[in-house]
């Protein structure tokens, strides 16, 4: 392979006490790829992506980001995490700070940028997600969709090489979903490497390169988009797709 | 450290310590029961429909709570000296009125925490206001506030130590007396503190065993 994958999971297993959550999961993501992970609740999708930036520990297997073993004790995690952007289901904006400050915080403290550079970048990103006028607004005065877009800007502010999304639209009212998805589509078409846990199959159809289907902690299917939607290989994936596309 | 530990004189005075402990327990038990009575009355008034009652209750609570307990004690022992109340009863009165204010606040909050619909449901089945309060609202409110009441009880036991200032021969008073006799300063105070600790722990856990009490942290709410 001329281009080594930027993310490589190999036989990753994780349990909470005696309950297994991830079983022998292996997955690679190449630079510029958009991979969608779907599956029923409790299948381990969110846990899997939270292992990639070491927010969740794993017991066995290996996760390499650009060749660096994520679980190794010698790895500088804060530094690694500045190369990976993450967007959470419940936005997780810092409630005591304005949108602008939210986006500036890690730039200043994790990357060491000057406040003025950070501010310029933050303002540019807010404009990019369509919220230039909300720079001084506090999260409690923003709608869910607006908060999520600020959260995306916050993640992009560190110029990450990869963006991880954990069910970014699951907590949103229907009218706001498309605003957020539009931002994500723009990112994808702009060449960002993305790993997205979602139920939004319309989004997957538009920009995904591959679909990964998980069930009970296992990666059941991992196929190119077209193949997945026309002829999923496994029965479980077929059932899931049937239910999800039925409405 | 030059200090030589010697617990023997403490043990020798164990009868004084026991007397003090019993007085503390009596004072606390009495204070708690009376404070509960006062607190239930004032607390219920604080959650009443009538605005006048609510204001009266709030006034009681604010006045009694914001005056230091020591000043309460002096008020009965020195201020109302003409009543010739024995110190024990001065302390009891002070503890009752002061802690009663805290109990009242806790009960008022507890009553407020019971969903509105419960009262409506009870009235709809033909119960009188008083029956609804007694049979439906109160049991639920008490279940909610048991952890707070446990913490108030333990606070009351600690507060009773101030009775020593107005010459009630409870545990702290005896501690000072024994210290004066034996000069075993550290041993006395550590022993007495350990006794308070034991008493407070026992009472807190005991109250939490009341059936239906929510198993919440033993750390106190309530700023008694």
């Amino acid at each position, binding site marked *: 392979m001329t281009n080594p994958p930027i993310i490589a999971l190999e036989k990753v297993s994780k349990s909470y006490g005696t309950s297994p959550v991830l079983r022998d999961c292996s997955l690679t993501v190449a630079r510029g790829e958009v991979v969608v992970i779907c599956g029923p609740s409790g299948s381990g999708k969110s846990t899997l992506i939270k292992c990639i930036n070491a927010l969740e520990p794993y017991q066995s297997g290996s996760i390499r980001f650009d060749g660096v073993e994520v679980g190794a004790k010698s790895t500088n995690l804060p530094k690694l995490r500045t190369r990976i952007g993450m967007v959470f289901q419940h936005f997780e904006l810092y409630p005591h700070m304005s949108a602008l400050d939210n986006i500036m915080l890690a730039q200043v403290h994790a990357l060491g940028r000057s406040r003025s550079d950070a501010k310029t970048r933050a303002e540019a990103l807010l404009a990019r997600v369509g919220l230039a006028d909300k720079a001084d607004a506090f999260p409690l005065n923003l709608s869910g969709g607006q908060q999520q877009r600020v959260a995306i800007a916050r993640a992009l502010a560190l110029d990450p090489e990869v963006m991880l999304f954990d069910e970014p639209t699951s907590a949103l009212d229907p009218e706001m979903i498309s605003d957020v998805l539009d931002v994500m589509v723009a990112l994808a078409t702009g060449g960002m490497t993305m790993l997205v846990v979602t139920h939004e199959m319309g989004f997957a159809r538009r920009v995904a390169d591959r679909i990964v289907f998980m069930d009970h902690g296992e990666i059941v299917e991992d196929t190119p988009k077209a193949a997945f939607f026309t002829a999923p290989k496994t029965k479980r994936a077929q059932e899931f797709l049937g239910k999800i596309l039925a409405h | 450290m030059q200090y030589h530990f010697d617990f023997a004189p403490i043990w020798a005075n164990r009868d004084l310590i026991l007397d003090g402990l019993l007085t503390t327990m009596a004072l606390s038990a009495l204070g708690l029961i009376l404070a509960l009575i006062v607190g239930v009355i004032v607390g219920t008034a604080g959650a009443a429909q009538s605005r006048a009652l609510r204001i009266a209750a709030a006034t009681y609570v604010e006045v009694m709570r914001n005056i230091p307990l020591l000043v309460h004690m002096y008020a009965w022992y020195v201020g109302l000296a003409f009543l010739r109340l024995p110190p024990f009863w001065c302390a009891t009165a002070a503890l009752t009125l002061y802690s009663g204010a805290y109990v009242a606040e806790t009960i008022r909050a507890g009553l407020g925490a019971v969903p509105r619909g419960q009262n409506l449901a009870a009235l709809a089945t033909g119960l009188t206001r008083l029956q609804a309060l007694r049979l439906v609202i109160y049991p639920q409110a008490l279940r909610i506030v048991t952890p707070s009441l446990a913490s108030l009880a333990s606070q009351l036991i600690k507060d009773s130590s101030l009775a020593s200032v107005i010459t009630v021969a409870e545990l*702290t008073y005896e501690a000072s007396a024994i210290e004066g006799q034996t000069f075993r300063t550290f041993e006395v105070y550590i022993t007495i503190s350990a006794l308070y600790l034991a008493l407070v722990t026992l009472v807190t856990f005991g109250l939490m065993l009341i059936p239906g009490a929510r198993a919440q942290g033993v750390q106190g709410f309530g700023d008694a």
Partner: protein
Amino acid sequence: MPEVVLKNLPFLLAGLRVTAEIAALSIVGGTVLGLAIGTLRYLRVPLLAPALDLYVAFIRGTPLLMVLFICYFALPALLGYKTSAYSAAAFGFIAFIAAYLAEDIRAGLRSVKPGLMQAALATGLTRAQALRLVIVPIALRNVIPTLFSQYVRLLKFTSVASVIGVNEFTGSAMLVNGREFAPITIIGFIALTYLAICFLLSAAGRVLYARLAVRT
């Protein structure tokens, strides 16, 4: 204002000033210490945990008067140093309130939803940075009412310092009463004064909370 109070006002006000001083000292010192202890307990630092547990459990199960006696009589005897009543009282109050504030702050830290810590870490902040810039500021804002109720409690507790001979407000008033024998007036006066300042302190807390609380 009654004559007996007016006559002795300078003395009483001096006592009030001492009360204010001790309270201010203890509030500031206690909050700083309480923040340190509360954060350390929240982080469950293994070496310190048993010592901190013991300290908090001891203070919370011991009457304030006992704590003051220990600070003024027992510890100096044990360790062989001399101390003034004022210093012993200040030391005792700080040690006392810090234990309570530590628990309140710890509860506040735990009530911050874990997702926020994850979000902060995900952007490359270290644990220490995440605590300093995100978790602690949010927790502190949310526990303002609890902290202020402890501060008001401390203000009332300063009266107990009179028992070990500190000439704060209550102590001064009882001394005046010893001279003047007008107990109802004098005690009424100090009761009203405490009422007023405690009420003001509570009100200040409510205003601060209204301004700073973060509603999520």
